[in-house]
């Protein structure tokens, strides 16, 4: 059965009911509605409207709901009856009410993220065999609103001296810890790293105070040893880092490395100049604070003339259980603001995912708390801590991951490339999951 009814008629219908609580409900206009019968019905409404009107009652309620009015309650209340649904039998529906699912794309995402290429091949005056391009997104990562132009990349950590690290990580590097070049080779050849980060931590005055000139040698060695793009990191010492990065930038001239990092607590102008003078990109690092990130980016662009295609941001990674909630929302806010037009924030992002190894759950042998359930072997716990930390940030928009454990790298690449869309499915009959033998 199909009926046409005008909103004016509905108003009339309501008026006759004299339901006090309908105050506030005004349905205006003269829209014509197509009403087909046979649906289920609201018992209170059916009672109120009487049998004839019963079939349309539901639709009226639906319209009103659409308009934001709590019609069901109003009716029930006005009539002084709140029937328990269990006591009123519903007519069974014989056929599915066929519906089409629809959802709109997000219109406000109108500003793309900058594309930044790291590494230079011989064609561009470098000696890398491959390059890495980050950014270019027009939507949140892996969303259907717009295709993501580039996949996520992983750069693996190499240090210029042996450092203390979680046992689970260390067991992979014991043979190469004395030799950064061998270490770099190993992460590329054996562990499938897209890039290598060489951390010049021995330059820290509180560690070895290695002179910048010597540290630059290590950078040359690494560039010799591998043909992927590199990140050059200092020690984190704000006094020493600018000098170290200047020297390193010089010897890496033409290779388009990423200098890590410029930050507000050191002489970022020197770092920026080292990058622009020698054709590198710069990592703009702030501490979980979106306004500080804007400020530093602005300074790099306006004060230091760093081109827009040479800035990557590190808004700071806190480990799962140790502030990942801050890190996640900070990145998500940065990316959303960027997509919606904030041109001080529309740069690719990088995460120090290795920070996950700072969480005690990743490295401690067992829980220090007697009340906790058994934590299981740390060999399994550690890598998954790094994976979950990284993949959570990938969903917030992070592009480049600095990581340490080979298993973590492999799994993170698998999930990010799966969501990116470049991995074939293994045929799985999920219709039978309930009875599956697992």
């Amino acid at each position, binding site marked *: 059965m199909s009926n046409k009814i005008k909103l004016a008629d509905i108003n009339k219908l309501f008026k006759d009911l004299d339901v006090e609580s309908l105050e506030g409900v005004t349905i205006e206009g003269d829209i014509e509605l197509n009403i087909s019968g046979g649906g289920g019905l609201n018992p209170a409404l059916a009672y109120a409207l009487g049998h004839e009107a019963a079939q349309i009652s539901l639709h009226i309620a639906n319209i009103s709901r659409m308009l934001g009015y709590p019609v069901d309650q109003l009716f029930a209340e006005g009539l002084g009856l709140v029937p328990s649904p269990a006591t009123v039998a519903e007519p069974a529906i014989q056929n599915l009410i066929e519906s089409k699912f629809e959802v709109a794309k997000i219109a406000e995402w109108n500003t793309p993220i900058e594309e930044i290429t790291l590494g230079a091949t011989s064609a561009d005056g470098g000696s890398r065999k491959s390059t890495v391009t980050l950014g270019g997104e027009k939507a949140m990562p892996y969303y259907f609103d717009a295709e993501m132009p580039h996949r996520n990349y992983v750069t693996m950590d190499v240090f210029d001296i042996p450092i203390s690290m979680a046992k689970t990580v260390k067991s992979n590097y014991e043979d190469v810890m004395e030799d950064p070049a061998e270490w770099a080779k190993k992460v590329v050849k054996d562990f499938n790293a897209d890039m290598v980060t060489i951390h010049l931590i021995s330059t820290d005055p509180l560690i070895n105070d290695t002179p910048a000139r010597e540290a630059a040698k290590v950078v040359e060695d690494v560039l010799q040893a591998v043909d992927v793009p590199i990140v050059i990191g200092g020690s984190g010492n704000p006094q020493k880092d600018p000098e170290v990065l200047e020297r390193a930038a010089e010897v890496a001239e033409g290779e388009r490395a990423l200098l890590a990092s410029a930050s507000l607590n050191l002489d970022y102008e020197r770092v920026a100049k080292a990058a622009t003078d020698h054709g590198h990109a710069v990592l703009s690092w702030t501490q979980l604070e979106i306004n500080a990130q804007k400020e530093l980016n602005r300074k790099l662009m306006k004060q230091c003339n760093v081109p827009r295609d040479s800035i990557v941001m590190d808004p700071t990674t806190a480990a799962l259980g140790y502030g990942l909630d801050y890190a996640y*929302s900070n990145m998500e806010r940065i990316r959303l603001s960027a997509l919606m037009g904030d041109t001080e924030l529309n740069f690719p992002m990088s995460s120090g995912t290795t920070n996950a190894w700072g969480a005690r759950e990743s490295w401690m042998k067992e829980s220090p*708390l007697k009340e906790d359930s058994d934590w299981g072997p740390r060999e399994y716990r550690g890598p998954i801590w790094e994976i979950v930390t990284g993949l959570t940030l990938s969903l917030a928009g992070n592009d480049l991951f600095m990581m340490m454990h080979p298993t973590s790298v492999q799994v993170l690449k698998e999930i990010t490339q799966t969501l990116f869309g470049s991995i074939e499915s293994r045929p799985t009959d999920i219709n039978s999951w309930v009875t599956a033998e697992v």
Partner: protein
Amino acid sequence: MKVNSPLEAYKFLPGTNCGRCGEDTCMAFASHLIDRSHKATDCLPMVEEDKFANKLKELEALLAPEIREVVIGVGEKAVKIGGDDVLFRHKLTFFNKTAYAYDVTDTMDEKELLERVNTIQNFKKFYVGDFLTLDMIAVRCVSGNPETFTAAVKKVMQATDLPMVLCSFDPAVLKASLEVAAEKKPLLYAATKDNWQEVAKLAKDYEVPVTLFAPNDLDMLKSLAKTFSEMSINNLVLDPGTFPTGRDLKTTFENFLKIRRAGIEGDRDIACPIMAVPLTAWMAYDDEISASYWETVLASVFTVKYGDIMIMHSIQPHALLPQLHIRDTIYTDPRKPVTVDPGIMEIGSPTADSPVIITTNFALTYYTVESDVSSNKVDCYIVVVDTDGIGVEAAVAGGQLTAAKIKKTLDDAGFDLKEKTTFNTVILPGLAARLQGDVEDQLGSKVLIGPTDSGRIPGWLETNWPPENK
């Protein structure tokens, strides 16, 4: 939520500023309605006086979250899912954390089944003052036999109060189990395009929530949801299928995004909690570690992006710990201050010979330290310094943890080290080592530098306490 500003909500309130809700003004109360920290029924005059009854009803309907809330189970362990109003947590917060269910099957022998149930219900991990725990048991009918399944469901019910998901596509199986389990309000899994009429009848007759399963078919999922809603079956959970790998997984991910976006944007039919089944990872990977890793990866992805309930298989700690933590990460209220009150806490029964430990009032820091010492039966004093809720390392870097602040905390509490302790010594966190000289000067006491992780305090005390030169 259909109201967006305190002003809109205010219109419905009595406007007398009587203060019974605990707020000074109706306007203040209205703003808490918008941030969802108060319920309309917290305004007692509205509840008590008949003349406000309609306003209250209207207001409640307007305040109802965009995504339906569904309750599964009964009593203390019941879980509530759905209820969200935003697509990004920083816009407000996410409500009702994802419910984690772990499976058992009706073909397990009794011992294995009970062991699994007990592992699931007893698993706990201390975090920020409380224990993280698991929520539910999913009972899968593998036998295909109604009696076998019902027997397994009975065993689960005897062993635990955790809510259940009853999994079978056979209405006869579901019906048999509901005969014994309906009063526990389990979640039915699932109605499909083939069995929906019978399952709808079960959901209706037994008044239990029900899952709608339409793998990668959002039109069908919506049709089912609409049909069930028209039948006044409103406690719905949507399962768009969890394909575990490759492009199919990408599509699954997109389906989750689409459903939630449509729901938040006002498509009432589809505005229901969503189910993910990371367990399907076990259908794609044979080896146990790969499967449990991939399952945890799926669980994490869908905890971050809109899964409201999910079913998993691995109960190994390396899977459970990150799952519990990612859920806590995403569902922590970003608006909530993360501090504890500053002052001096007595842990156990400290005496004049007990150690005095300095830490910050960041909740994560404080509870970590507190549980590390109390769990190991260390009697001590903890001096909780007001660092504006910043952890040790950042507070030292940012100047919130200083010698003066430490002194002030002791002074405010009237705690004189020379008088109250034998050794006149405090222990600083390893990460605050650089404050040592300052603290010695300000307090006129000795200062020991503890380990960088408080988990090592008990072991460290064994060799370093009592301090040598008294």
